Structure formats: C-alpha cells, structure tokens
C-alpha cells in the first residue's frame, strides 16, 4: 500500500509534528474554543500554500467578511489583497441569517456545493478552508438535512481532491459543538488557550491522524508578527552541525582553561555563580571581544538597562559603547516578569531573526523563575537553546546559584543541554574570601580541571595563572 501523501502547511513546527503536513486531498478538522487561533491557523495554511507551494486556496468564511479577514491577516504580515489579485487566494463570505429565511418544504444545500465548486474551478484551488461551518446549524432548522448534507460535503471535498481545513468550536463533551469529528475522520487537531498562574499559553495537540504517526504531545504555539509558530521541543532531533571553529571568551586565562582556544563556535555556555561573582562581566567580556572580531552580538539583559550595563561594564574596563555605535552589538533590556514566557520567546526569536547575531548573551536565566512554572521554564530554555544551535549561534547564559543548587533543581534538565559550564564561586581561605573559577564541563575539549582564583579589576576579570597557588597575580 502506498503511504499517505501529505500537504505541507508551511507553519513553523507543525509540519515537524505531523511528519510532513496535513493529509493531502482530505479534510482536517481544527477545533478549539473561541479566540484560540483557529482562523489564523487555517488562513496561514492557505497563504503558505499559495506563496510557498504554488497551491491556490479558497477561504470560505461563515463569520467574518472579506474586509475584516484581510485586515486581520495584514496584522500577521500577510498581504491578502495582493494574493487575491494574483488569483492565488479567493475569499468567499457566506452570510447566514436565520431570521430572514422562511422554511417551507424540503430542501438541500446544493447551493453551497455549487458555490464551492465554482470557486475551486475559478482559481484551480488545491486547498479549501471552511471557517466555521457550524454556523450553518444556526441558519437552518432542519438538523437531519444539515447532517446529511455535511456528510455529503466532506465526501465531496475528498472527491475533489482538495486538502481542506474545517474549523469547529469546542464543545462540552465532544471536540466540536456539533460533533463534526464524526464526519472528518482523517486528522483532528485541537487548539487550546489557557491561563496558568496569570500567564497565558496557547497549545496544540494532534488528536488523531489516520494512517500516520505523529507527535502526540501538547505543543505550545505562538502567534507572532510573522505568523504562527508551533514549538516542538524535541523536533530538532539533534541534527545541528557541530563546528570545529573556536571563539575567544575575551579573557585570556579562561581561554587557557578551556584548552587554549576558547569556546566552540555555536556551542552553549552556562555561567553560574553567586550574587556579585562577576557573571555579567564574563558575559560582557565575551560580547566585547566577539564584537571586536567583527561578529554580531545580541545582549539580552533581564536585570539592567542598556545604558546601566554599558556604564557598569565601563567601570571594569569593558567597552560596550563602541561596538554598539558600530552596530555590532545590540543590547535589549526587559523585565523577565514583564511578559509571559511565550512572549519572551517570541521576542527573542524575532530579535534573532532581525539581527542575525552570531553571539547571544542572556543575562540572567534565573530572572525567568518568576515568569512561569519550573517545567515551562525548562521547556522554554530547551527551545531557546535548540533554536540558537540550529541558527549556529554561540550562546552564553548566566545563572544565579551554585552548582549544588543547580543539580538539585529541575534545571538539571537544562544543564545537560549545555556544552560548557563555568562556575564562579567563593572559596573561604584562612585570611579572606577568595573568588575562584572552574570549568565544570566542556564538551569536546580537553579543558583544565583547575580551580583558579580571580579578581575583578578595572581591566576586567583577571584569572591567576596556573603556577599561582594562592592569591591572584595582578
């Protein structure tokens, strides 16, 4: 038997979950409560189809008229007017108002079929969206006729070999209010919009996909200014290319500790340490040095404003203003609690997309602990790290707390994603508290096992050389 052929949606992440897209030439049901993003999903499916896969599409709306729809989609960055003019997309608004209709004797919905058929033929459509067909139930009182006609409609769509999306409002006991899942049996996708701890999260789940395996988890998705993005955590399947190049940490002795050449390019670095241990300085040193080598750097600060950061780093001899002026370094500040985790993710994704940095500093991770549950944070970090890796970005995260705290908390899941882990800590000696740096792990390089004392001076972080036993040699 030949395998099920699929129609790629072009929606970021969804094609990975469904292993290729929606069932080609068959109807798919997308259901969810009001405001969960059904219409956007359906529309992006059509727009991507028309733009990226040369499959023209018909959007039949039972709820919004063409003007409202085009306005909505302009907000997502899609220019419907242009696509309509090129005959790649056709909007059909079907208006039903029961109060204006008198029913007498038997009827069927042949008119709907005629209209659909005409629309499909007029632009050679391969994709069809019916949003949301349940509106018919409020327009006609003969439910038996309606149900028979719906059954006929879905069979008819299959015969026409169009890939269709039918949207439906979530019901109390069934997936849709009118039990549409009874008619659409090939693929059912459920959307959900819920608020946990005052943070709103949108989620997607493939409930059913006949004849195909699919990701069965609930996946968070985002509605961004560039369309929908579903975030399958494990989708990347560790496919990113490992790089042999190195990039200096910006601190000479630290490079020595890391086997002589610094970090691996496109690796992920975690710097953990107590308050005032110099985590930000380590990050800023890296940022300044990378920018000096002509790399584009994005510095995301969740504690300090860009100007505060520049001033504080200047006091320890790290110049962030010059690369900023040259456009090599961009600093963005945001309170971690200002938005939900998803909004942060969107922002980070958008910044990365716009700036195309080679190095990203995120200072500090721990700021997020207020913005969501531990599990959500871990999932989000995994996604960020995966995304950076896929883009070939060298990323440095700082985090408040010692190694023991890290290994106790659930963040341990994140530390396994980290390639290089540097710890800054206080070491009590007889005379005074000393600061010491050590490389806990660094994948793929013969890093030093030393714990070296360091001081923070007006020339940045100075790490003692290997020979030194006590005290930093400044």
């Amino acid at each position, binding site marked *: 038997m030949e395998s099920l052929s699929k129609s790629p949606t072009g929606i970021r992440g969804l094609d990975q979950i469904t292993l290729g897209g929606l069932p080609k030439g068959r109807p798919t049901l997308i259901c969810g409560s009001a405001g969960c993003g059904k219409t956007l999903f359906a529309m992006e499916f059509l727009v991507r189809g028309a733009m990226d896969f040369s499959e023209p599409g018909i959007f039949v709306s039972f709820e919004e008229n063409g003007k409202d729809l085009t306005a909505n989609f302009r907000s997502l960055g899609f220019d419907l007017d242009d696509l309509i003019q090129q005959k790649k997309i056709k909007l059909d608004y079907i208006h039903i108002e029961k109060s204006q209709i*008198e*029913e*007498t*004797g038997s*009827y069927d919905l042949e*008119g709907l079929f*005629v209209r659909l058929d005409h629309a499909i033929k007029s632009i050679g459509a391969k994709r069809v969206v019916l949003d949301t067909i349940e509106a018919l139930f409020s327009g006609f009182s003969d439910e038996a006729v309606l149900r028979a006609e719906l059954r006929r409609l879905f069979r008819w769509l299959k015969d026409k070999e169009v890939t269709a999306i039918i949207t439906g409002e979530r019901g109390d006991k069934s997936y849709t209010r009118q039990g549409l899942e009874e008619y659409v049996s090939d693929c059912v996708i459920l959307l959900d919009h819920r608020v946990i701890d005052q943070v709103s999260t949108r989620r997607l789940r493939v409930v059913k996909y006949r004849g195909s395996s699919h990701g069965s988890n609930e996946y968070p998705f985002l509605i961004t200014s560039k369309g929908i993005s579903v975030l399958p955590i494990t989708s990347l399947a560790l496919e990113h290319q490992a790089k042999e190049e190195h990039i200096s940490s910006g601190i000479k002795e630290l490079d020595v500790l890391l086997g002589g050449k610094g970090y691996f390019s496109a690796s992920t670095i975690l710097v953990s340490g107590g308050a005032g241990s110099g985590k930000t300085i380590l990050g800023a040193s890296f940022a300044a040095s990378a920018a000096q080598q002509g790399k584009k750097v994005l510095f995301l600060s969740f504690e300090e404003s860009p100007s505060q950061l520049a001033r504080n780093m200047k006091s320890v001899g790290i110049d962030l203003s010059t690369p900023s002026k040259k456009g090599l370094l961009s600093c963005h500040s945001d309170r971690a609690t200002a938005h939900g985790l998803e909004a942060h993710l969107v922002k980070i994704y958008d910044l990365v997309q716009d700036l195309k940095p080679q190095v990203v500093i995120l200072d500090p991770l721990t700021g997020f602990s207020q913005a969501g549950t531990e599990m959500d944070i871990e999932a989000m970090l995994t996604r960020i790290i995966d995304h950076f890796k896929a883009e070939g970005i060298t990323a440095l995260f700082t985090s408040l707390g010692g190694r023991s705290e890290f290994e106790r908390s659930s963040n341990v899941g994140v530390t396994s994603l980290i390639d290089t882990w540097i710890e800054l800590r206080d070491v009590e000696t007889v005379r005074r508290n000393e600061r010491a740096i050590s490389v806990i792990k660094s994948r793929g390089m013969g890093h030093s096992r030393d714990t070296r004392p360091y001081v923070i001076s007006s020339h940045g972080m100075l790490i003692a050389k290997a020979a030194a036993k006590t005290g930093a040699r400044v």
Partner: protein
Amino acid sequence: MSSPEKFELRLYVAGQTAKSVLALKNLKRICEEHLKGQYSIEVIDLLIDPQLAEGDQILAIPTLVRKLPEPVRTIIGDLSNTDRVLIGLDLRPL
C-alpha cells in the same frame, strides 16, 4: 388580498431535480391564486450560472427570493406549505 404592487420573484434551482420542479409548480399555483397579473418569475439554474449564487447568498436549493417589493425576502424549500409561503411573501398577516 389586493395590492397594486408588482412582485418580482426569483427562484434558484440546481438542475431539474424533483424538488426544483415541485417548487416551480407550487410557486406558479400560489401566484396564480394570490397575485394574478402582478408578478413575474425568473428561474435561475445555478448549474448554468453558478456565479449568481453569491449575490443573493444562496446555500439551500430551492430558494425563492422576493426581490420586489422591498425588503428582500427569502424562502427555502419546495414551497409545499402554501401558508408558510404566503407568510414568507408577506401576503398574509400572521
């Protein structure tokens, strides 16, 4: 039941189905009985002119649309219930 107004009626069908034939027969009978000399019937077959379905928002077949006198009124079905047709055409007070 006398009104000087002219009734402009439009019947939408899709091919010569039993329901469509019955609807036209019923419509002609009702008009002859109640609107003699003051009506015109236009039959639109959507299989021939599918683009015309959009204008009057036709979904159900058969659909009768009273274009004049205004306001526009819509009646769906084979028009076998004469009383309801008369109510729909606003020819009989409720």
